[in-house]
């Protein structure tokens, strides 16, 4: 049950002050690894080709994860670095500075595996201590990071975790909130400002790598614009008349971890630039040069989402509008709040689709069947298939984990590799190396790819959406279809309405109930207007 308002006020008035207990974790090894990775990333974003930029994105994702999740220092670090190739390849391609950074990074990541993560040690000790003292705790984390917390302490259960604004708003008061990583309102490790402006605990125990800075504007009071972090770091004066001042936050900073200098690598400095600031800087520069676009992520209630250019109008159906003539709208995701509306996605067939019909999922059944056979034949060791795919330039992290995901049957979309090159390589490897000859038939890969693209909703892509008149035509069409749309909306999160057969356009519209809209992502054109699971969009977060 959601806490009532009076109890919420009672809790705030009974708590004289709140403490931000910032526990900075020192690791000379990890600090230096971060420096080396920054050297590598800077070079790759500066001069990388498409394939190399993809590796850079993966490395950036991995670095962001290290900073915000208590991941163990295991072989994953080395694997990520190995995506760059061998020493000679790197030296030829990137020069002396990068190859030295690469060698140092590999060496450090091997040492780190032996030493273990001081973050995990400190966090684990704290959790055990708090639970032993019967302190009520909650951990604010991303759902996908939970396994790393659970592995720290057997007594932890799902009930100890809070995942988002809604869960936090609904939670009862408790004693201590644990959070790993800097306090940020966007991107990796993001959490609600309400942690500081509407606390439901007296202590926020923040475990953060030294050198990682909190966002200045975090903990913003929407009325005064002042932020708790700014007040705590003395960047602004404290005013008790605003809520930040009235709540009386105090900051306590302690340091722990591997404080001894590492003689082998001669490392003793702390990182000299905040990693997220660095990543933002290089990515912004890359986006400027490569004309990446500002995009909005429209998240659907069914855990899928779609990226659309921030200034491009989208078609929505608002079921709340009583007047059916107004229920279809063409609005910009920037200017309009879409929660509760249905996003309308055209699935209009075009000439090049031929006989491909995604509803029947003919092609996906075939290739998924072949992939499942291969995986079943090698249940414990997918390394051969992964190796073959890597040789065909499928440079994805955790490839072994993704292969079984691609076997999953179609749901909202057909689970498959995101890129044509990767999908084509997968079909070729399955066909040639595992004797799945049916996949080598004429244009099988192309037809199956069209089917996948259709399921993702980019049937009429290739820039045609850019044309305003196209959208207006669709707007008129949807208005004509309004009665069918109203009838098809039976309270589900997703539904499909076919275009009437007497119309020039053939196909259907899919409607997805919108949960929220996230602004401020910068993405290449190639990832726009495709439906994917929302977790797939993590790599575009800062």
């Amino acid at each position, binding site marked *: *049950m*959601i*806490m*009532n*308002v*009076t109890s*919420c*006020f009672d809790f*705030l*008035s009974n708590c004289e002050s709140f403490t931000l207990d910032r526990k900075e974790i020192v690791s000379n090894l990890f600090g230096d690894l971060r420096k080396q990775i920054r050297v590598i990333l800077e070079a790759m974003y500066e001069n990388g080709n498409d394939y190399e930029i993809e590796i850079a994105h993966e490395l950036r994702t991995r670095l962001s994860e290290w900073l915000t999740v208590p991941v163990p220092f295991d072989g994953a670090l080395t694997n990520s670095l190995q995506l760059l190739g061998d020493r000679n390849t790197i030296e030829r391609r990137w020069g002396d500075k990068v190859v030295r950074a690469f060698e140092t990074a590999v060496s450090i990541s091997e040492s780190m595996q032996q030493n273990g993560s001081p973050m995990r040690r400190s966090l684990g000790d704290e959790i055990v201590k708090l639970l032993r003292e019967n302190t009520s705790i909650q951990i604010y984390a991303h759902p996908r990071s939970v396994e790393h917390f659970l592995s720290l302490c057997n007594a932890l259960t799902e009930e100890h975790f809070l995942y988002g*604004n809604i869960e*936090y*708003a609904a939670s009862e008061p408790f004693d201590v909130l644990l959070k790993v990583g800097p306090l940020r*309102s*966007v991107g990796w490790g*993001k959490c*609600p*400002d*309400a942690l500081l*402006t*509407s606390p439901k605990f007296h202590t926020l125990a923040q475990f953060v790598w030294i050198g990682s800075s909190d966002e200045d504007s975090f903990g*913003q*009071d*929407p*009325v*005064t*614009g002042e932020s708790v972090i700014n007040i705590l770091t003395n960047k602004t004066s404290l005013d008790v*008349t*605003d*809520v930040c001042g*009235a*709540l009386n936050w105090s900051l306590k900073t302690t340091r722990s971890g591997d404080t001894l200098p590492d003689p082998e690598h001669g490392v003793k400095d702390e990182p000299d630039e905040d990693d997220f600031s660095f990543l933002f800087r290089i990515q912004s520069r890359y986006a400027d040069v490569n004309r990446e676009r500002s995009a909005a992520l429209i998240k659907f209630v069914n855990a899928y989402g779609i990226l659309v250019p921030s200034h491009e109008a989208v078609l929505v159906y*608002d079921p*709340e*509008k*009583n*007047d059916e003539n*107004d229920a279809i709208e063409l609005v910009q995701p920037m200017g309009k*709040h879409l*929660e*509760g509306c249905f996003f309308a996605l055209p699935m209009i067939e075009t000439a090049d689709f031929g006989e491909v019909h995604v509803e029947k999922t003919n092609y996906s059944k075939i290739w998924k069947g072949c992939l499942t056979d291969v995986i079943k034949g090698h249940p414990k060791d997918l390394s051969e298939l992964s190796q073959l795919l890597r040789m065909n330039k499928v440079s994805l992290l955790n490839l072994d984990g993704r292969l079984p995901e691609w076997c999953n049957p179609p749901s909202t979309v057909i689970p498959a590799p995101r890129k044509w090159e990767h999908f084509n390589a997968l079909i070729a490897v399955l066909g040639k190396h595992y004797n799945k000859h049916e996949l080598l038939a004429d244009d099988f890969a192309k037809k199956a790819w069209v089917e996948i693209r259709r399921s993702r909703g980019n049937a009429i892509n290739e820039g045609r959406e850019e044309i305003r008149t196209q959208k207006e035509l669709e707007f008129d069409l949807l208005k004509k279809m309004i009665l069918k749309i109203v009838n098809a909306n039976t309270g589900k999160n997703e539904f499909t309405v076919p275009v009437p057969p007497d119309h020039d356009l053939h196909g259907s519209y899919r409607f997805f109930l919108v949960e*929220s*809209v*996230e*602004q401020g992502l910068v993405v290449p054109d190639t990832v726009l207007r495709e439906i994917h699971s929302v977790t797939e969009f993590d790599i575009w977060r800062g």
Partner: protein
Amino acid sequence: MKFAEKDGTYYECLPEWVAYLLRMGCEFAGQINKRQKISLISMPCDSPGAGLVALGAMISYLSARPLSDEEIHRRLENGKSRTLFSGTDMFRYIGDDRGKAVIEEIIKSDKRRNLKRPKKEPIIRTASLNGLDLRFEDETIIVSSNKALSYLHIYEKLAPQGVVIYDRALQQSHSAVCIVGKRKGLSVTKALLFDTCFETDGKTANLLELLSLVDGSLDVVSRVTMYNARTGKLDRPGLPPEIVVADGIDAFLKIVEEMQRSTNNIFSGCNIVVVIDRTEKREKLDSLQTKVSELRQWYEPDLLEFSVPPKGIAYATYFKRI
């Protein structure tokens, strides 16, 4: 005065935050003048705060002198060309007979009428205004003693000290206060209002009832209108609102958008109070900040402090520059 929330817990007296928001609404309504005003209130959680501020403002208007019979007659005279309703019967206003209203029934033409039967003659009625339950088409009852709001005791107990409520005001519909429902849907706001109850002297009423919002039938006395931020429609027409209380950031943005759209729509001259939930997502909080920064070109902070809010509430007011 007892108070209850959505979980059914009864509090023996009004919690501080409830008293503050009622007082704030009442004082806000008492201080409006020629300079347009915008107030922002942030709350630590989702709440019926907008309803409470609207109720405070409504109570302030209940303490203002209600319309006299002469003024109501003048209003009926000005709307003489419009059809009046009393229940399902239709009338036209004829005039004032020593304070009483003279109205003539409008007979609906019936094409299926048997021509042999004599034509029905319109009835002319003369009666006191508050016994006729008259209303213009699509509007609520202008004045009625039968359908007067029945929560005088509760309003009196909720009114800040010194505020005296006119009995007669409870008999008259009014549209100076408007509440804007959440963009998620009016039903969300209404559910919050429904779950917020007051009890005194054995009488209980929820916020939805106290605000006298219309719910289907227009044959009622209503003192507050409701605006749907999704559809852009008011629940009933009336004079432009003087105070608009927005439930949440989206509702506020919608009203400001309407206010700025033109200088002669119903919201162009209104004063706004917005009640914000601080657990909203950052994107929403940022959109509010952006709008407030933009408005500060034309509005300046009110340096006169309103009473200090309880811990957990933040408050700021801006006046339109002259």
